[in-house]
């Protein structure tokens, strides 16, 4: 074992609602739990797509804002003291001596006695610009990792949502110039940010698309971009860097290649939530079986089923039925044992 090795009873891949409830449940069953997610924060689809919307279809909660719901799930899971490995992607899954070994993209190797996949619709990847892909890594990027990199640059930001506006807002005082290029007339992002970006003197080019990126490709020096307006008029503007903030598209990601039995965009499971691989379970929107309904309520039930089976797999002396959570101190006194 190296410093990059982690050992755990159960590794949960995906920190959305199903994974977080799974972390609670694993703790309730007395399992040492590790949760990995490619996103930097827990909450999955809820935080990515509707953090401010009201959720009304979870038992006993008449209505709750997305981000509050996630915070409550994290709090509930905290009783079992899970280890979070966030901002890291599970890249490979192998079996050593019958037990799963998962390697993350930062080199961390997780030795788990069981894995529960709760990665839902999968990994968000940036939507491509559609031109100038050869500049990726030099004159084109999909994220702003360090705003200072753009100091004294002419920056062109493409997109009309919150990311585009947030980055325009952040780079305004740092870059030599910021031009926001958006295909439509109106912006999707927050009105207050838009107002601030406009007030800062950012050039806003609406009803406009980027059609080419030009410069010294060999030297990695972008010089300008060609913009085409809806009318067909083209203009060339100076640009040292283009940031494409066109949103994200999700797909299964690396687990497509793990040898799991798949059905379209889903992982096939049996009624115990077992996948086709030993000691690998799945729950939530990721799974498929006849009659499947993709809802959080269903994911919660599935992950409880999965964790109870995991508990018995790892310790055959345990019973499938966990006992009742109403009993006192289910964690501290090894109540589930």
């Amino acid at each position: 074992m190296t410093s990059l090795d982690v050992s755990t009873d159960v590794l949960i891949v995906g920190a959305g609602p199903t994974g977080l409830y799974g972390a609670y449940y694993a703790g309730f069953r007395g399992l040492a739990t590790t949760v990995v997610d490619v996103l930097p924060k827990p909450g999955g689809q809820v935080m990515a797509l509707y953090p401010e919307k009201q959720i009304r279809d979870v038992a006993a909660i008449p209505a709750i804002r997305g981000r509050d719901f996630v915070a409550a799930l994290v709090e509930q899971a905290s009783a079992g003291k899970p280890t979070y490995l966030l901002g890291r992607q599970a890249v490979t899954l192998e079996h050593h001596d019958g037990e799963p070994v998962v390697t993350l993209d930062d080199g961390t190797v997780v030795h788990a006695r069981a894995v529960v996949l709760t990665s839902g619709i999968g990994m968000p990847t940036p939507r491509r610009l559609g031109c100038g892909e050869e500049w990726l890594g030099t004159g084109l990027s999909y994220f702003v990792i360090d705003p200072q990199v753009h100091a004294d640059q002419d920056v062109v930001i493409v997109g009309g949502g919150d990311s585009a506006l947030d980055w325009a807002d952040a780079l305004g005082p740092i870059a030599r110039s910021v031009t926001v290029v958006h295909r439509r007339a109106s912006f999707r992002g927050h009105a207050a940010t838009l107002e601030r970006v406009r007030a800062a003197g950012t050039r806003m080019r609406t009803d406009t698309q980027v059609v080419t990126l030009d410069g010294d490709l060999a030297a990695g020096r972008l010089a300008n971009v060609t913009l085409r307006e809806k009318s067909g008029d083209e203009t060339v503007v100076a640009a040292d860097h283009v940031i494409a903030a066109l949103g994200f598209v999700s797909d299964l990601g690396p687990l497509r290649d793990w040898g799991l039995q798949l059905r379209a965009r889903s992982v096939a499971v049996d009624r115990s939530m077992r996948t086709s691989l030993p000691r690998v379970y799945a729950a939530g929107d990721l799974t498929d079986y006849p009659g499947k309904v993709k809802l959080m309520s269903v994911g919660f039930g599935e992950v409880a089923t999965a964790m109870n089976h995991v508990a018995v797999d790892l310790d055959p002396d345990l019973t499938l039925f966990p006992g009742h959570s109403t009993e006192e101190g289910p964690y501290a006194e090894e109540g589930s044992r």
Partner: protein
Amino acid sequence: MTYVIGAACVDVLDRSCIEVCPVDCIYVGERKSYINAAECIDCGACEVECPTEAIVAERKARKDEALSLHLVDSRAFFEQPLPGRDAPLGNAGGAQHLGDVGVDTPLVAALAPGSAQ
């Protein structure tokens, strides 16, 4: 459950829906876009984005005669061979990789220009 794009999209093709779809399940024909029901995760992001309000939830569309036709037609776009093609489009797993399909269903192709109004 899914969402359906109605006639209000025809010849408009604003594509704002495509920008917000988290699973890239909105495919462009020639004059109209189509949502792949098998790939749609029912998040509703596209519905509010459409400038012509062409996108409607399936459960609402079923109560409207014209939209019901588009619901059936949208399935046909993926499940039946399109004009000039031998095989159905199927579930391509993402419109971005596929590019514009460039062909409409017979129902949409036969719509008069200005059907969106």
